[in-house]
């Protein structure tokens, strides 16, 4: 059971707690153990049709011709759906909060940018008949050069993955091809250090592998509305995305969800709802579109792989004096949420440590891989992995205990963070102390007595003020005025997220 450590921060805590520290039964547990919990796919609707998609056989290719005439005549087929049938066949998820450019079609039209990209949808009486029809569709591809490596993708002359971003990097605020963090003078920090180390960390894409695959069922409802049962983790986000893609008011839809068979971030991309709803609109019948396991594993979006270079300088007595990070987030062929992951990654630097000189360049890169998406701390976990590996290496280098090394460098209340915010409410010192105790890992008394509230107030000696006009504008010549901000679109109700991205720089 949960253990409350009351010796820490006792003056900040109200001990008159009704719930914290006590077990509370989940409200959905009875449904789970009796099998009564209703997932999207547990709805059987009269006359339900089944939608399957033809996926690209190539990682990068021009589509010369699509011939679905034979598929149309295939038994049980009710409707073939092509890109031109999608009212607004270009979208980016975060456009709902006015972040990024529309860069991804629901169904590919002239080009495919990753293996498995949807091209044609078939709606048929049974899944088998839908699959049989898919096998009869002929796509004439002209394969194009591919790029799978983030650093290769940024080189001049690399194949252009996504024409919306011709340099293969997401562009922030119409100008910046990466997220940048500057604090102190990292080169001077390295010069002052007794040891400098640099390492490269390469993550792999990770599939969420939820036990329930992505899917949805859409059915015509009364008054011209549609009822949508969905596996989504982001119900209203999905609803608004569908309203945009299908070019109808969002009150056209009644989304029902919330009981999700595992998501972990892999069910926020609105992968199936636009097509199942469009299928229902075009046939007047309920339509189900559910991923098979192979689709989920191969073409469902994974955690994006990151490549991270970390260079640290440390003094003999164990103080980290400089940290320089260069990282590339592999977004795959389309943005989805990777632009946001990079913002989080930059915001996380240099980890929960007080370091006087910090430098970070983080890129959101397009490659011909499956588009990446959210997954449990995406943008942060990989950087944390790299940072903590580096912390162990630094501790070893200066002959310090790794726990004590972390306590020594942990940020304290009053320290100035690299983002020019003062640290408040820090508790890392105490966390490390308790972790050491739990792991029966001996740390010296001196470190056991340290506190997040003592020794803070560390400021950088000479942090230059950020220049009024950043010198790192790479995508727009400086003499050209930036375009006026687009008027805010009609509220999609998501403006509260804007704090995550900060204010737009003009």
């Amino acid at each position, binding site marked *: 059971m949960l253990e409350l450590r009351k010796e820490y921060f006792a003056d900040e805590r109200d001990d008159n707690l009704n719930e914290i520290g006590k077990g509370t*039964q989940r409200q959905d547990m009875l*449904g*789970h*153990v009796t099998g009564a919990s209703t997932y999207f796919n547990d709805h059987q609707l009269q006359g339900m049709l089944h939608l399957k998609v033809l996926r690209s056989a190539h990682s990068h290719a021009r589509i010369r011709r699509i011939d679905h005439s034979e598929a149309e005549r295939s038994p049980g087929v009710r409707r073939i759906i092509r890109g031109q049938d999608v009212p607004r066949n270009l979208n980016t998820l975060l456009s709902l909060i006015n972040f990024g450019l529309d860069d991804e079609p629901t169904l590919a039209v002239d080009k495919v940018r990753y293996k498995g990209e949807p091209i044609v949808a078939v709606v048929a009486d049974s899944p088998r008949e839908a699959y049989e029809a898919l096998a009869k569709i002929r796509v004439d591809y002209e394969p194009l050069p591919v790029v799978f490596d983030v650093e290769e993708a940024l080189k001049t002359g690399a194949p252009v993955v996504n024409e919306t971003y011709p340099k293969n990097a997401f562009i922030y605020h119409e100008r910046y091809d990466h997220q940048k963090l500057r604090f102190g003078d990292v080169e001077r920090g390295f010069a002052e250090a007794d040891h400098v180390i640099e390492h490269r960390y390469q993550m792999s894409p990770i599939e969420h592998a939820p*036990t329930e695959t992505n899917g949805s069922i859409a059915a015509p409802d009364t008054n011209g509305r549609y009822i949508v049962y969905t596996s989504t983790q982001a119900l209203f986000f999905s609803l608004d995305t569908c309203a945009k893609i299908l070019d109808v008011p969002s009150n056209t839809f009644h989304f029902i969800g919330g*009981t999700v068979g*595992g998501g*972990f971030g892999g069910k926020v991309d609105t992968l199936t709802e636009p097509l199942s709803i469009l299928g229902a609109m075009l046939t007047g019948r309920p339509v189900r579109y559910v991923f098979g396991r192979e689709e989920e594993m191969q073409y469902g979006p994974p955690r994006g792989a990151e490549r991270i270079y970390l260079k640290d300088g440390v003094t003999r007595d164990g103080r980290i004096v400089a940290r320089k990070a260069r990282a590339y987030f592999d977004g795959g062929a389309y943005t989805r949420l990777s632009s946001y992951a990079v913002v989080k990654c930059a915001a996380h630097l240099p980890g929960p440590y007080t370091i006087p000189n910090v430098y970070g360049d983080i890129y959101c890169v397009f490659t011909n891989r499956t588009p990446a998406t959210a997954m449990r701390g995406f943008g942060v976990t990989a950087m944390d992995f790299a940072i903590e590996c580096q912390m162990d290496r630094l501790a070893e280098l200066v002959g310090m205990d790794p726990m004590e090394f972390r306590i020594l460098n942990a940020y304290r209340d009053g320290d100035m963070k690299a983002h020019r915010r003062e640290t408040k409410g820090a508790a890392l010192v105490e966390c490390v102390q308790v972790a050491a105790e739990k792991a029966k890992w001996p740390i010296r008394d001196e470190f056991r007595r340290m506190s997040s509230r003592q020794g803070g107030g560390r400021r950088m000696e000479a942090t230059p003020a950020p220049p009024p006009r950043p010198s790192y504008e790479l995508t727009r010549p400086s003499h050209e005025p930036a375009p006026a901000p687009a008027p805010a679109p009609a509220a999609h109700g998501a403006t509260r997220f804007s704090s995550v991205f900060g204010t737009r720089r003009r």
Partner: protein
Amino acid sequence: MKLPLQFRHNGRDVALFVDGGTNLLTALREQLGDMTPKFGCEQGGCGACTVLIDGAAHLSCLTLAAAVEGRAVETLESLKDGPRLHPLQQAFMDRFAAQCGYCTPGMLMAAKALIDRNPTPSRAEVVEAISGNICRCTGYEAIIDAVLDAAQKPRARA
């Protein structure tokens, strides 16, 4: 061609017509409306569709419906006795042995097959019994503890 098929579903005799290629999972869900076995992979990899056939745990996605002719099929739907939970269900609740709940029906049926056959299993035997059932949320410790708890309690019914 449709084949006639009769079997016992949760203690009730049922008769239906199925395509020769229809698997038991689809027949249960789409023809009998029993949504407790779940579709997770349809290739025998996840265990979410686990049901009991004559008391033994089977993957309903890899079992042709026609193969259960004359046999007794049990799903999670039949586990509780009216409003009364089976000790396994109660133990899963008490141990917080579910998060998203999607693997739970298969997990419970695999566990039932075990404790019906072996009322006092060891931890290793529980691990073995649920080794074909994948849980992606909670980890397996709480589930194993719950099965061991239930095995130690007297059965609610024979």
